[in-house]
């Protein structure tokens, strides 16, 4: 079955500061989209707004998943509807084991109508699947017994996010700089893992990145460039390559209004 995530004229503020100023983006199931742009352009904000972070207020526009109004849903309903975000800086939950957390998450996402207190996926079944996925991602089984993101290295955090992606098998996944802070080997491993999961499970991927390694293993059909809270240009794989090679100077010059908005947002952020 084909799924569509459709974002139209999305406007988002933090407090009374507008960040996104009308974003349009349509993703089909099975497609990979790269989202690029200089710092402060609003890339993470787009991801967090799609996921429903309470700190981001949608002031206009719409997000529809297969025609359903995503903006009406709480974050956990979005997760159960099939939206996932791998965070740039995932939160530590001290004392909660990865396996326990994942069992709750997986149960809820697979049984979206589950009521409070209903049984979790049977332990044996869950363990077997988790073990398989972890071995596939070349993760030490000990990892499942560690506390969620607690004392994880940058690389471990990113791999933990990928493991969650693999277990939850969403329809659409946003990867927010899943490659940042990783060394070359780790980026390669992460890239292959994502390609592997994405390829097999056929989800729609929105990859936010500054680097080319992740995209090398996950070649995007579309590349979007954000500046000043808007997508100013969309192209194919070539656009991503060009931006890696030459940076954002051409874009900044081509869209002076968006560039001015971007500078303003950075300046405001620095002032806070």
């Amino acid at each position, binding site marked *: 079955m084909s799924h569509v995530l459709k974002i139209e004229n999305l406007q988002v503020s933090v407090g009374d500061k507008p960040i996104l100023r009308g974003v349009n983006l349509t993703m089909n199931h099975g497609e990979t989209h790269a989202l690029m742009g200089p710092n402060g352009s609003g890339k993470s904000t787009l991801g967090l707004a799609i*996921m*429903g*972070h*309470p*700190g981001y207020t949608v002031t206009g526009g719409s997000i529809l998943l297969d025609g359903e109004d995503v903006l009406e849903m*709480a*974050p*956990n309903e*979005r*997760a*159960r509807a099939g939206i*996932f*975000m791998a*965070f740039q800086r*995932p*939160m530590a*939950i*001290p*004392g*909660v084991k990865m396996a*326990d*957390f994942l069992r*709750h*998450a997986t149960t*809820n*996402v697979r049984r979206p109508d589950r009521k*409070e*207190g*209903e*049984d979790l996926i049977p332990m044996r079944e869950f363990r077997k699947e988790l073990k398989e996925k972890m071995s596939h991602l070349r993760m030490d089984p000990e990892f499942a017994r560690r*506390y*969620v993101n607690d004392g994880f290295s940058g690389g471990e955090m990113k791999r933990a996010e990928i493991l*969650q992606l693999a277990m*939850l098998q969403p329809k659409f996944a946003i990867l927010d700089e899943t490659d940042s802070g990783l060394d070359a080997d780790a980026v390669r491993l992460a890239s292959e893992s994502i390609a592997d999961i994405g390829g097999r499970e056929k989800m729609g991927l929105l990859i936010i990145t500054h680097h080319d390694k992740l995209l090398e293993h996950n070649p995007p059909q579309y590349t979007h460039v954000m500046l000043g809270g808007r997508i100013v240009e969309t192209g194919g794989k070539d656009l991503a390559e060009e931006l890696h090679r030459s940076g954002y100077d051409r874009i900044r010059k081509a869209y002076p209004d968006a560039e001015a908005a971007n500078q303003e947002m950075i300046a405001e952020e620095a002032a806070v």
Partner: protein
Amino acid sequence: MATDISEKEQIGEINKYNFRTETHDVFKAQKGINREIVAQISEIKREPSWMRDFRLKSLEIFEQRPMPKWGGEIDIDFQDIYYYLKPTDHQGKTWDDVPAEIKETFDKLGIPEAEKKYLAGVKAQFESEVVYGSLKEELVDQGVIFTDTDTAVREHSDLVRQYFSKVIPPSDNKFAALNSAVWSGGSFIYVPPGVHIQFPLQAYFRINAESMGQFERTLIIVDEGASVHYVEGCTAPMYTSESLHSAVVEVIVNKGARCRYTTIQNWANNIYNLVTKRAYAYQDATMEWVDGNLGSKLTMKYPAVHMMEPGARGEILSIAFSSAGQHQDAGAKLVHAAPHTSGQIISKSISKNGGRSSYRGLVRVEPGAHHSKNNVVCDALILDDISRSDTYPYIEIAEQDVQIGHEASVSRIGEEQMFYLLSRGLSEAEASTMIVNGFIEPLVKELPMEYAVEMNRLIQLQMEGSVG
């Protein structure tokens, strides 16, 4: 089918401890406290004169001492409490010997079942008296004594007299004096040199009657190189008037011995729980208090370890959970009275629905206790804007060459943590329960499995209805 049962159980669980049993008391003293009532308690117990004199002297101290000026608000009318209530004539050696309605109470609490599964011995106290006692035969053969303190006064009087009130004298505080005057029941344990008791000994304390005061007195002596794990649980039904639980627990851990004392206190929310607990640990001995406070209206309890000789170690793990109408003023005291001693306090408190949790702790290094090491970690978690957490650490150090550490943190369940869990499909209630369980996990993993399960279940009950 299985789901049906568990669902029903869950509904029942919430009120699991809140049931009353119709009983036929054998003897109920008049309400209030005076010399006559204290003398009457001593007489009924057929005590030697030294204990009677001790009680009467303690009553004088109780009457003279002012109420504590710190901690929580105590609004007790001492003349409106029953100080002694004898529920049955004799103590059962098997559960069948216990009067049916009392046995039913402990059945509901799951005590006989737990005994079969994983306990080396059990004491069950109902109101003022221990109504059931057991100890595995091989432990009896090894010279272990596990009995109620009343019986111990009669049958092991030399041993009791040597240690009784030596660790906590009646002059210690007003409530220790009150307990010394009217004490009844409690556990007496003696573990002979070199004997290791593999499974826990458990005592269960139940208050059933309204306006009932429970004043058990526990004395534990772990002789050289021996070890024991003692566990106590406490519950009571909910009444409109307040009740008082005021225990005194004294522990002596001799050279090279080890004692762990675990409490899971789940009193009803109308009970003042004002308890004095202290241990003396001698050369190379280890004393551990694991203290879980979930119930009561006000708890004031600071288990203490005095490290009396080199190599002694004291560890205190404290969990406090306070909800609406509750104040947990819990903490710990470690006194380094000898060189080369070490101690650790880990305290975790959770406040929700307007509850108040305080950590009150003392670390004292006495003159001469050089090369002492002490570390305190206290973390508080506040679940909403109407709840409160306070920290009162007292540190007194009379030596130069010591290592002292203190870390404290207060956190709220962060919006970011919550969002992270919600973004993975968890409900708000599931997410906050998970965060709370994670918060106390370092303590829960120290408990034997059965108690860890019980603790998690109690936390879950406390958490129910906390969101939305």
